């Protein structure tokens, strides 16, 4: 099993190809099975993983001869955690689609699995061009999922999303090509060669922006976020889950792996600006979220706010900030997927996402109310839930960097509670109306999606060390490179 990373990478793509040939709604069951197998492989990897800073389960093959470009994959702590997140969420996302019957289901589910290959490739690549390659491979399926199966205004909105992200990634490509040519000898795009470069401050300064724009658009950090709320709203729920739950982590992961250690001096020139932008995003996203009437848009803006905090924490370059950012990636993925799923449940039964049209749902739905409340409390970072661990570490990191910034960033907890509780109040409490009077409680499938998510909410909240200990050596190693 030493080539585990390779199997993890190839299995979803292979399964996706096979699923293309399955007609009818059987495709969804096959896709679910394939995703579960992937998850089992990841669990195997986690069991065999030894918590140190080394890259484990490596696979290396020459890709382009004489160019020093190699097919070099493997997993260290951060990769493993994100691969775990991907493999954990994809089966749930597929399961969450069971009540829907999308047209051309074989293509729909094949695209989800192709995207999984792209995502896992991004998280496990240790070669710059390979990373870029998978970065785009992950984008194309989601563009089609959102563009073909989305809502009425999907065509212009998803096209904006596509152009926005691909333009960002082309800047990243320029940065990589430039770095590639700075490596000694016959050039190589290996990550360790990038880490060993000692560029002058001016070069680092502009390369920082070329790389950062790509990652900032993906996350998205204010002011690069304008594609995000519309795209989340118009996409089918599964695409929204993939985008918010996993894909935005590509941006954060890119910052941790490919930006901070590669151009540390560039970072030290611009980190204050980035943290200020991120904090603006926190407050801005939260304030707009408070004003939203549409549930999906509300969660979309709340996502901008939460990601802002993660970005701010990581750019502090403190161990707290980094570790908090990484654990918060996991928590945010779980919470946001859960929330979007609950919104989907509500929408399927009432055909509305307007808070004003809803109300009184608790009266008929004890199970839904409990799950909704737990996920919501996780999102507002109540102690003992997953959100608390991440936000506490992140805020402590930002506070170490600058007291005032820490104080402003801390608003996220208050504002988060405001918009989330307002949403819960408006949707779940109050008088029943004709739309919500006949609201059915959760079905078995829906519970099957929510139970694993809720277990994770408590697991991370009560025993975060399971995950923190995985990434600790790697974070220490990266910080060592950044501060060299």
């Amino acid at each position: 099993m030493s080539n585990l990373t390779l199997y993890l990478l190839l299995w979803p793509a292979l399964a996706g190809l096979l699923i293309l040939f399955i007609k009818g709604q059987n495709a969804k069951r096959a896709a679910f099975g394939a995703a579960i197998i992937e998850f089992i492989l990841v669990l195997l990897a986690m069991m065999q993983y030894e918590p140190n800073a080394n890259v484990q389960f490596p696979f290396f093959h020459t890709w382009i001869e004489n160019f020093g470009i190699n097919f070099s994959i493997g997993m260290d702590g951060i990769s493993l955690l994100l691969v775990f997140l991907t493999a954990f969420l994809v089966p749930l996302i597929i399961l969450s689609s069971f009540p829907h019957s999308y047209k051309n289901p074989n293509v729909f589910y094949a695209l989800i699995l192709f995207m999984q290959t792209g995502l896992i490739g991004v998280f496990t690549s240790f070669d710059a061009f390979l990373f870029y390659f998978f970065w785009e491979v992950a984008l194309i399926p989601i563009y089609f999922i959102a563009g073909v199966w989305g809502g009425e205004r999907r065509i212009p909105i998803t096209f904006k999303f596509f152009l926005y992200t691909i333009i960002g990634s082309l800047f990243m490509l320029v940065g990589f090509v430039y770095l590639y040519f700075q490596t000694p000898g016959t050039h190589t795009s290996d990550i360790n060669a990038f880490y060993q470069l000692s560029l002058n401050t001016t070069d680092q300064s502009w390369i920082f922006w070329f790389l950062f724009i790509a990652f900032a658009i993906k996350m998205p950090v204010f002011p690069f976020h304008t594609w995000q709320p519309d795209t989340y709203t118009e996409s089918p729920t599964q695409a929204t889950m993939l985008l918010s739950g996993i894909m935005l982590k590509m941006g954060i992961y890119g910052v941790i792996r490919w930006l901070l250690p590669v151009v540390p001096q560039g970072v030290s020139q611009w980190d204050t600006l980035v943290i200020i932008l991120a904090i603006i995003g926190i407050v801005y996203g939260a304030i707009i979220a408070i004003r939203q009437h549409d549930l999906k848009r509300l969660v979309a803006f709340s996502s901008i706010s939460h990601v802002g905090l993660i970005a701010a924490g990581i750019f502090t370059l403190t161990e707290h900030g980094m570790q908090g950012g990484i654990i918060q990636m996991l928590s945010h993925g779980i919470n946001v997927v859960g929330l979007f799923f609950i919104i989907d449940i509500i929408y399927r039964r009432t055909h509305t996402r307007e808070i004003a049209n809803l109300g009184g749902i608790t009266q008929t739905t004890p199970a839904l109310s409990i799950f909704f409340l737990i996920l919501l409390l996780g999102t507002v970072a109540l102690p003992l839930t997953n959100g608390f661990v991440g936000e506490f570490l992140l805020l402590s990191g930002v506070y170490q960097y600058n007291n005032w910034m820490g104080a402003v960033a801390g608003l996220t907890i208050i504002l988060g509670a405001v918009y989330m509780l307002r949403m819960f109040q408006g949707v779940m409490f109050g008088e029943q109306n004709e739309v919500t009077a006949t609201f059915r409680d959760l079905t078995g499938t829906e519970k099957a999606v929510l139970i694993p998510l809720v277990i994770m909410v408590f697991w991370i909240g009560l025993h975060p060390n399971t995950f923190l200990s995985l990434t600790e050596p790697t974070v220490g190693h990266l910080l060592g490179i950044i501060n060299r």
Partner: protein
Amino acid sequence: MNSIILLTSFGILNLFVGFRKSNKLVLPAVFLFLLIVLVVNFYDWNNTTTYFERMLTIDNFAVAFTGVVVLTTILVIPFAKRYVDEQNESLAEFFSILLFSLVGAVMMVAYENLLMLFVGIEILSISMYVLAGSDKKNLRSNEAGLKYFLMGSFATGILLFGIVLIYGATGTFYITEISSAATAGSGDALTSPLLAMGLLFTLIGISFKVSAAPFHFWTPDVYEGTPTLFTAFMSTVVKTAGFAGFYKLMSVSFAGAYDIWYPTLVAMTVITLGIGNIGAVAQNSFKRMMAYSSISHAGYLMIALLSFNDRSENAIFFYALAYSIATIAAFGILKLVSDQRDDISYNAFNGLGQTNPLLAAVMTISMCSLAGIPLTGGFFGKLFIFSAALEQNLLWLIIVAILMSMVGIYYYFRVVIAMYMREPNGERVAVSSSASFALIFMAILTIVMGVLPGLMSNLL
């Protein structure tokens, strides 16, 4: 050399096939002929020989590019089926002209003497003038043929004048000897105004042929009017052969005179990239968009000309192959769709993803390749070109090119959107099995080039 002889004799043989008035035989015959040429061509691999007093050299460079143009032509054939169905009387002649024009293309990639370059360009161009106007009853086609002929022959005149002036300055037609005459410190040829003038005129002449701005004005009109089958040929074979010849001229003859042509070519590259990409955005006709797209790809290829180092040759080869395959597929699908729906605009492709999943999938792969998105050959084509240029410290030019390829993504994806996200506006498009086979082959080749670029990144 074998390929020149074979192409010529097969061209004549094909005319006799045409006498039988049996069109059914023509396409298989041409297919077989070209396949033979393709195979025989590779016998010259790693076996450099010169012919006609060193006027032609068949080296790996020539073999590789001959391979590209012949393969491209083979892939055009399956889309000609409609000519057979309609009992077109001139089918055999059309394909004989294609075979003859390939002789010109081979000469353009194998020349060692500027006269051969000129003769090669003329053979190719004159064939193209005829084919551009080959749809005799169509006004647009007549216009295209006439326009291309008038402007093309004028450009050829300028090219010839340039070659003569270079001869005046250096006293030779051989490119290697020009190189030694036109290198700093080896005489006064380098400073001679004749050389600068000759170089400029040659540049203009060749730029016209590869449709580089500001000598691109004929391209959209001619591409649009020319029957789609021959547009496909024109935008791939002429461009590939033109760039191979162009590269050989600049890198062999005028590497020493770098300072003279470099600023001009840089300016032309930037203008070409700009006009090609921005012009394409404004088009509503898919065919005109492809014409501007071909201008923009000329711009990307010119970046490799500017950087001439050990990476450039292979970069041009890889790029030309990826571009040709994707372009043939796009024009092939356009031909199938427009024959049935009688429309060459983006709307013709509406809902193709539902009516013809195969056509839509291949078109998407081709558009991704042209736009330079990973998983396709076009991405590595661009990457190789850019890395060749970066070795020459042309960072700012790469940034311009990347900005322009962002624009490119916009117009290439418009057709993808039409195919998958809009409702169909017609019946299923009929596709012959040979065309499907060719399309699948091109899609696989594009993906293979995009996943395993190492197979072809080190040939030259």
